[in-house]
């Protein structure tokens, strides 16, 4: 079996090496991927068509927004798939103590205090990354991961029960689904106003600015949708993996 694996690896490696010899040179500005019609269109027309200076976000959230919607769905599936497989619903889930004093029943004082100071800053920066995604590097995925990480940090420092009171399981699932509803629902709104699915220009009548600005605003909306899903799923995956689906004390 090992020998078979070795032979397979050698063959695939040889194929990959053979192909690289045929590629355009590293950094070649004249290669098809850099100079092709599609790339030139993105580089030259993005600012005119969408009023968005960040080309990457424009490609992600508008030109190929349909892909990004499904990428968000992939994250959603990863989350509810892990819940569906791991989560054990039963009586063994002990009742967590309620009230603010329960926040202080676990962890070290210094860690907890630092965490209480850092979490708001992380979340504020995450919101900036989401809101500014179409102007500077950033966007829904990056900001969502930061927001999710802030919840995970809180759970690590103050214990899962405390974090669960802020982001319970049911709430996480609702937020995750709401994110995709925002994204796909925005696309359906375009459809209802007479355009194709995700054709943001058809939202022009209900958004401020002209048709191109409608694209820019819509990118912000769908990025917010992405951030909702990513935040909630990050935390749901952490809480299920760290407690083997029992959602008790955790790490």
């Amino acid at each position, binding site marked *: 079996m090992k020998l078979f694996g070795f032979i397979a690896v050698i063959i695939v490696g040889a*194929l*990959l090496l*053979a*192909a690289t*010899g*045929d*590629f*355009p040179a590293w950094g070649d500005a004249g*290669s*098809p*991927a*850099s*100079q*092709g*019609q*599609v*790339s030139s*269109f*993105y580089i030259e*027309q993005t600012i005119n068509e969408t009023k968005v200076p960040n080309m990457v976000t424009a490609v992600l959230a508008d*030109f*190929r*927004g*349909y*892909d990004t919607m*499904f*990428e968000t*769905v*992939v994250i*959603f*599936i*990863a989350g*509810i*798939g*892990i*819940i*569906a*497989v791991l*989560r054990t*619903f039963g009586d063994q889930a002990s009742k967590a103590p309620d009230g603010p004093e329960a926040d202080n029943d676990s962890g070290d004082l210094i860690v907890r205090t630092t965490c209480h100071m850092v979490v708001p800053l992380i979340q504020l920066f995450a919101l900036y990354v989401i809101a500014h995604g179409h102007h500077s590097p950033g966007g829904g995925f990056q900001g969502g991961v930061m927001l999710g990480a802030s919840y995970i940090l809180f759970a690590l420092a103050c214990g899962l029960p405390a974090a669960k009171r802020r982001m319970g399981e*049911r709430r996480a*699932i*609702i937020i*995750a*689904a709401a994110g*995709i*509803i925002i994204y*796909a629902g925005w*696309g*359906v709104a*375009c*459809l209802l106003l007479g*355009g*194709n*699915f*995700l*054709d*943001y*220009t*058809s939202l022009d009548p209900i958004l401020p600015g002209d048709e191109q600005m409608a694209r820019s605003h819509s990118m912000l909306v769908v990025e917010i949708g992405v951030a909702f899903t990513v935040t909630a799923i990050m935390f749901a995956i952490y809480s299920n993996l760290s407690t083997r689906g029992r959602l008790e004390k955790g790490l």
Partner: protein
Amino acid sequence: MTEHFSALILLMPLFGALLVTLLGRERRTACWLTALVCLAASSAFAIGNICQVLASKSGDLRYRMGGWQESAGYEVGIELRVDMLAALVVAMVVLVGFVNIIFAKTRVGSEMKDKVAFFYALKQLLIVGLCGIVMTNDAFNLYVLIEITSLTSYALIAMGNRRAALSSFNYIIMGTIGASFYLLGVGYLYIKTGTLNIDDISSVMQSGDLWAHPSIMIAFVLIMLGIWTKMAFFPLHGWLPNAYSYAPGVVGSFMAPLMTKVMVYVMLRVMLWLFGGEYVYSSGHIWGELIIWMSIIAIIAGSFLALACTDIKKMLTYLIVAEVGYMVGGAWLMDGAGILGSMYHILSDAAMTFCLFLAASIVILRTGDHRLTAFTGLFRSMPLTMTGFTVGALSMIGLPPTCGFFSKWYLISGAIEVGHWSYVAALLFSSLVNAVIFFRIIERAYFGRIEGVESLPVDADGSPPVVLDRVPYSMLLPLLMAAGSVLLVGIYNEVLAGWLRAAIPSL
């Protein structure tokens, strides 16, 4: 409104899945109703789509996501493209999904316990993924949707019994390798052509005369390897039997007919539209003859492995491996009739696999036994279930007027036209093996003697309404619908073949 049908087919189950997750795990009937309504609407749109394709002059519908018009002849956004083949396969996916939701009604509670809502959500998302794969005209979008179908199926399979978790893990490893190969191939194509739209890649390769470049050939090989892994083409089939037979009954009966068939569709799409028959079938490549021989081996090995099984579901999964061999072989016969046979077999194999898996699930539920011996004397106690099973079995063997006969007919006539007698022999051999397998069961069911007909165990999970076969209507009806579709696809084979023939691009 009508121009949005292809997008609406996808959006219905997508919103259905989100709604089901919002409903939560307590409201089971509401979840079921939501899924049912969404898939019914989706089916209606899919049928509307077929009518539109028939009515259109060009024979295909194009739908630009985001409304991005092409620039200088290249698509800048993502485009859906629905020709007759895609319209039929999409209709097949959503109809099988719809009928399976009816089937799931009484079983899902006992098989999924507290996770009913997750089941309905994941199942609808799987349908979204499959429909998207079939309709998209973008090589990377195809990958994203393959990811969606893979993730949902890993989760759905892992929700089965204890052994399901390990088989799902095997499937994750194999599936991820397959998807990575596909992605690598698409990456190579993008480096060489600078676009991701399937039609545009094809036209850039044509105009730039990239055919002789080794990287294009390697991209083709990588994409094919990836797709073969996902469709369980022998010897890459290792993950399939365990995954499908240990999965929950309601999941297996849905995934077995659809997943491999949709991947065969992707293979045809890549061969005939992305690379084009001229390149794929050109005599300069060593692969043509080699792959037909591989598919002959797949057919024979799948048949033998099925013959050796004593577990009904395992046996059916090995038959799928053999059927995949049929379709791959047909597609590589380098001949219109073979390709037509392969396309028609996608539809007919889905119908008959669905029928057999439903019947097997009912028998396993009623007898509590998943061995072939469970069928002893079943015609006496479960006549309707066994009628459905017999129709599916006759189609597997290939007797008229079932669809299995006609797909074999097209495949064999294609093979005879190009003079590939070994493929013909393999098909006939596999039919004989199927006859042995199924007549063994049918004989046992007709003439086998059992002691105490009344002592069949009753369903452990309460008391669903029990009828003639002591099976709820909600399970019997889907089985009879599936059996009916086996006959309908067979009887109307002329019509379907005519439609499909129009979709085949000139070689």
